[in-house]
């Protein structure tokens, strides 16, 4: 039988099938962080259950961490307690933790790939919906709730129904200045926020084949924003080259053997999907969102649609935008470049390339937050830090930061923020804040101009 990439990886991890019920799926790697793990540790403790495979768990502190003065004790008592709990729980259970300040610390979906923890053909989970990021490697990776975190602690397995399959194919040549973020925002704008619910999505076509691993991670990261539990891209030479030599990647002969196996994973010709969508790369332009879910996106040159629907109108009222309005020249006081979607080295290269020789707009407060300590170091090494500083921008320390505003990096009430993150929900970046999702290029241009500009004019 012809199999998809997803089928191949899934089927290789089924421990047992329950009649008329779910399957027991084996999990290779379990990533944890401070926010969604304490209650799971608590549950195990309460029931007297040990952690079954501590060696297959890796922990980092990211959601609830400050992005300044990380060498000092965390000021917020609740956050500090949560971080201390994580340290205690990891120590007690023999789990590797890259805590605040560690050279490998970072956002869970940035640090795990760069350490070679993420590898093709694996199953990976984390108590975070953007775990879909790791699908960029041809990995089945998805977010889970805390009860499931406890299940994986207890058994290294989950009870799951096999999801349906969906394929999004984008072929053609992307226009200048159209980044992976624009591709995924375009796809979500076309398909809506629940087209993928109940499905695992494979991204196919030359557009994804030609993308870097960083770009593929940006795309897979936002699969959950169209409802799909995960997204995957077939592993190829780009993938193998990225994994090779990383700290936890297989070495020598073992690596060669793994590559031989990974090469068998791509979807067979003639395999069928439950749902398929095709898009032309030429139709994609730099994108921005105007509403309060990631499906409410338009090309930067387009006007806000004129739908008549109560939820749509509620959303526009929250954003203080009008139907039919253009967002070009909209004044913007806040810019955030960061999050598990766009905080990798490539994202900062794009931003630096645009910013070089220009000055930050005086009305703008900008937070540039690298995804990990390693990204932060790379920024310094490549001289990007100087570019940012000369233009008037400060780099912060790694973490999830203003993406979900659990720490002090909050956008004030009523303010707009052009953000490279993944969600523009009401209050996501702080109570009353208004988020406009965009690529690192559009974010950088906004930070220089102090308003949204038609970036396509500068590119063509």
């Amino acid at each position, binding site marked *: 039988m012809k199999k998809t990439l997803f089928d191949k990886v899934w089927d290789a991890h089924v421990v047992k099938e329950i009649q008329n019920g779910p399957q027991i799926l084996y999990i290779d790697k379990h990533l944890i962080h401070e*926010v969604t793990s304490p209650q799971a540790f*608590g549950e195990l403790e309460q029931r007297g259950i040990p952690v079954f495979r501590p060696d297959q768990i890796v922990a980092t502190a990211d959601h*609830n961490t400050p992005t300044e003065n990380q060498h000092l004790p965390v000021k917020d008592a609740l956050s500090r307690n949560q971080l201390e709990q994580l340290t205690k729980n990891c120590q007690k259970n023999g789990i590797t933790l890259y805590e605040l300040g560690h050279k490998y610390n970072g956002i869970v979906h940035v640090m795990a790939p760069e350490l070679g923890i993420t590898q093709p053909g694996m199953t990976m989970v984390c108590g975070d919906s953007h775990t879909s990021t790791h699908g960029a490697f041809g990995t089945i990776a998805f977010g*889970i*709730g805390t009860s499931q975190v406890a299940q994986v602690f207890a058994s290294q*397995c989950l*009870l799951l129904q096999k999801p349906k399959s969906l394929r999004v194919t984008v072929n053609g040549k992307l226009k200048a200045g159209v980044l992976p973020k624009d591709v995924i925002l375009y796809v979500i704008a076309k398909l809506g*926020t629940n087209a993928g619910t109940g499905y695992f999505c494979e991204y196919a076509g030359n557009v994804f084949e030609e993308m870097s691993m960083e770009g593929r991670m940006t795309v897979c990261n936002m699969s959950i924003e169209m409802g799909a539990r995960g997204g995957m891209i077939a592993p190829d030479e780009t993938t193998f080259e990225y994994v090779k030599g990383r700290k936890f990647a297989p070495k020598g002969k073992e690596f060669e053997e793994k590559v031989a196996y990974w090469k068998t994973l791509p979807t067979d010709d003639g395999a069928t999907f439950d749902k398929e969508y095709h898009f032309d790369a030429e139709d994609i332009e730099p994108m921005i969102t105007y509403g309060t*879910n990631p499906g409410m996106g338009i090309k930067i040159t387009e006007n806000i649609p004129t739908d008549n629907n109560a939820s749509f109108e509620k959303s526009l009222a929250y954003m203080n935008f009008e139907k039919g309005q253009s967002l070009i020249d909209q004044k913007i006081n806040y810019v955030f470049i960061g999050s598990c979607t766009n905080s990798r080295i490539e994202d900062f290269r794009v931003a630096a390339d645009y910013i070089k020789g220009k000055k930050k707009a005086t009305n703008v407060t900008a937070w540039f937050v690298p995804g990990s300590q390693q990204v932060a170091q790379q920024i310094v090494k490549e001289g990007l830090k100087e570019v940012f500083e000369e233009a008037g921008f400060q780099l912060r320390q790694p973490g999830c930061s203003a993406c979900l505003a659990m720490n002090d990096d909050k956008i004030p009430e009523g303010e707009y923020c052009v953000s490279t993150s993944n969600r523009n*929900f009401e209050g996501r970046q702080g109570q009353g804040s208004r988020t406009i999702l965009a690529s690192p290029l559009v974010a950088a241009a906004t930070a220089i101009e102090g308003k949204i500009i038609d970036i396509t004019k500068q590119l063509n």
Partner: protein
Amino acid sequence: MDKFIKLRSSAIPLSIENVDTDQIIPARFLKATSRDGFGENLFRDWRYHKDGTPNTEFVMNNNSYSGSILVAGDNFGCGSSREHAAWAIHDYGFKVVVSSFFADIFKGNSLNNGVLPVQVTPAFLEELFTEIKKDANTPIEVDLEAQKITIIANGSSSDFEINPYKKTCMINGYDDIDFLMSNTAVIEEFEKERV
């Protein structure tokens, strides 16, 4: 986990689509290390103004509505995987959430916490909203065994789907950990064979 077999209650109508988990429980309340007390901050930024006073326009602050069933618009629970959303709904006192569509992770989290997600057709959802608007106290019955939801006043009912395994878990109050741990031998065997 609480058992769920059958429930008859009035409902609170939340006729908003795409209610995301950041609205159900904003991230700033995720700093706790226990599962308790999240109900207090359920729909926090819709229920309260920034100064802490209740927003009287929000349906949960309208005293005519009460009950342990939440009837919500399409695509309920989208967004983050935070189980805190299900804990908040449970802690507030809801036993059932009815919608025409649920996000995956939220649905799973609810089932793992004894909150039953009942997915109905858009037409039946509309009828529910209409009937609740007509009479805020209108009783609604949710029968898990029969997989049926009924508006008692007019007898209108709808069937709903649930995975048979999850149904057994809900009716008996079982959770997945017990089941998985009873399979440890098979899991260890699987690990050996893969090497």
